[in-house]
């Protein structure tokens, strides 16, 4: 039975939890409010917290500033990168988990090493390879080197598929199914939870990627959103009003926030690396 004392403590604890949570999420909550304010309200001092009038026009101005093109490019980059990489990772992970061949462990180790190499180490030479392939300022150059970072995904799928009972696959093989058929009909449907965790994390990473696009996609027709957004953070940048900068930031951030709210389980699994369960 709960004593009065412990009930009071529980209420205090829950209150603290809510307040701390609101503090942590505050910059994002303020982002939404600020993006709807007039410029004079957003830059007033002391700071105002609730918009006195709603300015949705900030968003259309932000869209114009981002040229729409960079938003579109981010969508293309994210979708194609994650789609291609998913195909490579699930088929590679399947091979490493369920097929026996001599260099299987060596390949797994080779993929694992890449997780511990900082992006900067390979930045210059990857740029050189991309340049030699005449892919600077093209979608291919933007996308392929990121698709190639298959280490995390392949190991994630391998780990997930290793624990799958082998009888299912044996049965399919006795039926004479080829490996590709087994992958398509058996493995992909069974690996949906792993795919969920993988997609959540990969979409997030691609959408937010900054360093590689900054180096390889400098012309406006391939630039992605992080590149058009970043200059707004510089204090000398006075080209557009603060409230429009907020709207631009919200425009790039809110899709991921919504995705997170809709697929929190997949994100949580991916972030904690336990998509393997």
């Amino acid at each position, binding site marked *: 039975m709960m004593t009065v004392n412990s009930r009071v403590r529980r209420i205090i*604890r*829950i209150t*603290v*939890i809510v307040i701390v949570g609101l503090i*942590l*999420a505050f910059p*994002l909550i*303020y982002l939404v409010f600020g993006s709807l304010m007039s410029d004079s309200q957003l830059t007033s*001092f*002391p700071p105002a917290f609730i918009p006195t009038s709603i300015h949705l026009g900030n968003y259309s101005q932000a869209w114009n500033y981002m040229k729409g093109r960079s938003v579109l490019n981010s969508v293309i980059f994210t979708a194609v990168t994650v789609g291609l990489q998913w195909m490579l990772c699930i*088929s590679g992970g399947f*091979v490493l988990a*369920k*097929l*026996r*061949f001599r260099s299987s462990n060596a*390949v797994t180790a080779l*993929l*694992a090493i*890449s*997780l*511990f*190499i900082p992006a*900067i*180490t*390979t*930045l*210059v*030479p*990857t740029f*050189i390879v991309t340049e030699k392939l005449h892919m600077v300022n093209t979608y291919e150059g933007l996308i392929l080197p990121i698709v*190639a970072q*298959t280490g995390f995904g392949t190991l*994630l799928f391998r*780990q997930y598929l290793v624990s799958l009972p*082998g*009888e299912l696959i*044996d049965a399919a*093989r006795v039926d004479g199914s*080829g*490996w*590709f058929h087994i*992958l398509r009909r058996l493995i992909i449907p069974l690996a949906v939870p792993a795919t969920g965790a993988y997609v959540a994390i990969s979409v*997030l990473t691609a959408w*937010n990627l900054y360093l590689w696009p900054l180096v390889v996609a400098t012309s406006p027709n391939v630039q992605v*959103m992080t590149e058009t*957004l*970043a200059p*707004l953070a*510089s*204090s000398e940048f006075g080209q557009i009003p603060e409230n429009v900068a*907020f709207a631009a*930031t919200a425009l*790039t951030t809110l899709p*991921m*926030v919504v995705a*997170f709210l809709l697929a*929190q389980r997949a994100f949580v699994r991916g972030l*904690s*690396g336990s998509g393997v369960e």
Partner: protein
Amino acid sequence: MAVAIRAKARSRRARGPAEGPRGGGQPRGASWASRDRAAAAGLLAPNLIVYTVFIVIPVLLALGLSFTSWNLVGAPQWVGLANYRAMVNDPAVPQAIETTMIFLVFGVVPTVILGLLLAMLVNVQFRFIGVVRTLYFVPAVVSFAASAILWQWIYRPGQGLLDFALKKVGIDGPAWLSNTHTALIALDIIAIWLSLPTAILLYLAALQRIPQHVIEAAMLDGAGPLTRLRKIIWPGVRNMTILVVIVAIIAFTNSSFDLVNILTQGGPVDATSTLIYYIYYTAFNNIQLGYAATLSVLQLALFAAILGLLALARGLAR
């Protein structure tokens, strides 16, 4: 994240062979073996080809380039160890290492401590706990670019939210991002805000493995919060801590470029010039690709040394 997978693989192995990998691929007749190899080649090859072209070759190329001088025009000139000698004599290098280390220590340590404390705080059941925890996790989806815009507004001298709050308690805040004493810490605070969700998540997973009745029994025995932390919580999260540290180090290494490039460009007066930023600057501003490659090798060696020490600590901890 990756480490989580490996840790899991290890724990699975530790549980004994009965639960270990036992795929359909294991016991099988010789007639299938050659078909297996062909299938393996077909399904794995595309993955390994792009991986080799854009990851393996660049790593090897970085090593090779570090012995050359090259400005992208013409062919790289072989200069032997000249870049390495230059690196040893370059006063910017020890400074960049020091800046990176300060950034890492003042970022990773608070992330780990706050991550544990906040995970302990939200490790409770009530009706809307799922919704409330979302508030703790959602900063994880914010990009460096977006967080830079939000925080430069919070940090704005005299006008921003932070100075507003400080003025309430009678403190005049510094110009956070343009003061040599505060710029690096200001960047750390942003990176901590972005890294906390993952730390809380990982710690929460470890805490939820400690049975609630154990904690309650300790409380009935009169164990105070500190004793509970030391005797029950800490043993339960000790192994997870090393994982949280590794994940945080990888996150802070990346943010030590993105946030610096967006918000301070290494300034004021090199106060935020981390090693990664210096490498980027050397490569793409000074167009000294050979020297940048040499610095990349140094970065990789430092990174490997730190992670190696942690792996060692993890080995000793169990």
